[in-house]
């Protein structure tokens, strides 16, 4: 049997806060295989960000085991296997777009002569060719978010983690970026973890949809998508799509009713 890239067994996480403990994750079991596109969906505060941060080794579970490639997330983070896209683009205002994309390459000591070509390549991937010399404030929100994805792609991380990357964007821009992300995924075959609040977005993008519910944060349903890998935007009107979306909605409602 093939070993999963990400393997969570009974993961528990309790934050100690001033107002007492907050049970953010409870008994989370999940296996993610190489090359999967996994979406996490659930109401606010159900622990989606927390789980993504656990995978990235930015947060340490207080119970259970979580391994990535058989190592601890901390070790995997140190091997620079993660490209993390935060909810806000978080570009450095004192660097140009190209300069921002160069940042991880500089830190990871990529050979200097290779850097410009890499920057050009990822700028092209996110459809920002020719914007390298611009400063972040000269770009729209959607373009900034694409630049932050380019930044995460630049160093060929094996696993791409994205926390509501398109949360602040309007529907039309979002559709376009969704298409681009799918193209990216097809082109790079990375393992992707993707947090969203949008049911259509989750269904359209994912090979696996993880439905979560709050207090304490846990997984209520894991849906394996039956959609083909090739997905034009129109697929969202297909019967198959609507069926999966319905199951996600049911899962969310069930989590809410408890």
């Amino acid at each position, binding site marked *: 049997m093939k070993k999963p890239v990400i393997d969570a067994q009974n993961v528990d996480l309790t934050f100690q806060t001033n107002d007492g403990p907050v049970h953010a994750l409870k008994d989370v079991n999940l296996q993610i295989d190489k090359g999967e596109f996994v979406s996490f969906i659930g109401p606010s505060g159900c622990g989606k960000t927390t789980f993504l941060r656990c995978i990235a080794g930015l947060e340490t579970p207080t119970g259970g085991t979580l391994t990535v490639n058989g190592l601890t997330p901390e070790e995997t983070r140190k091997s620079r296997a993660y490209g993390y896209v935060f909810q806000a683009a*978080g570009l450095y205002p004192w*660097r140009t777009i190209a300069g921002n994309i160069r940042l991880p390459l500089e830190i990871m000591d990529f050979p200097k002569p290779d850097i410009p070509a890499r920057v050009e390549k990822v700028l092209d991937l996110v459809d920002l060719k020719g914007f390298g010399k611009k400063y972040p404030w000269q770009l729209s929100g959607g373009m900034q978010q694409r630049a932050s994805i380019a930044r995460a792609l630049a160093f060929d991380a094996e696993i791409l983690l994205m926390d509501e990357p398109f949360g602040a964007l309007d529907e039309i821009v979002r559709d376009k970026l969704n298409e681009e992300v799918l193209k990216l995924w097809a082109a790079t075959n990375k393992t992707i973890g993707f947090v969203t609040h949008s049911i259509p977005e989750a269904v359209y993008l994912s090979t696996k949809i993880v439905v979560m519910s709050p207090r304490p944060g846990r997984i209520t349903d894991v849906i394996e998508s039956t959609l083909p890998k090739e997905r034009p935007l129109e697929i969202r009107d297909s019967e198959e799509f609507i069926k999966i979306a319905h199951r996600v909605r049911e899962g969310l409602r069930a989590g809410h009713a408890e």
Partner: protein
Amino acid sequence: MNKIVPVLTVLAVIVVVWYGAAIKMNSQWTYDQAARAGTEVTFGTLVTDTLAQERPKLPAPHQVVAELWDTTVAKKITSKRSLVFHGWITLSATLLGFGIGTLGGVALAVGIVHNKAMDLGVMPWAIASQTIPILAIAPMIIVVLNSMGISGLIPKAIIAAYLSFFPVVVGMVKGLRAPDQMQLDLMKTYNASGAETFWKLRLPSSMPYLFASLKVGVAAALVGTIVAELPSGATRGLGARLLSGSYYGQTIQIWSALFAAAALAAALVIVVGVFERVVLKKMGMAQ
């Protein structure tokens, strides 16, 4: 143009009030003189006399301007009466002290941000150092250093540094802590070292804060230098001009030294501001 008008209006009001105050404050002397000579004081003689006294309580604006002109443009800068000469003495100590204070302040801030013990240990002392009145501590520093054979520029620069390091520490600590959790986490996902996080994130983030504190710091350094020139028995520097003016009742000299100090402070702040604009623009942070 529409910016100039209000500025000129305010200036005109100040000048008018000043002339009025000069006439009123200096009139006593005119009346006394007239009484001694047994002459009447008409309004005309009152005005001309009060605005042209040699040691007025409050010199009139044109007297100060004339003195400023006389001691800057008309005098050779090597002359002991040249304000340019005294200004340079003060400026050199200010710049040296400002340089020391800035370097020290930045170094302390880096330590405070990176070291928990320094964070807890240094900050209270830095704050305490500023609660001691500079007028009380300046003579002590100068006397102690003099007894060690150090005099002139260095003691003044130390007092200037003492005043200017504090705003730099406070601003820099805030600036180096300006990156939010997300930006720090991003660095973590790259497995960046502490040094890389410092050079590529914390330091550039702190630049706007640094320049804000440098403006306060440079003005504080000037104040420190002038205060240091008061008790030293010094004969050089704007502070010495202020003090000797008050010894001999040379109010015109005091006022012109005061204006020179204010102009110097304004010039220093403007220079820092220009530097700020250039650097931030170069960094892409000024739009």
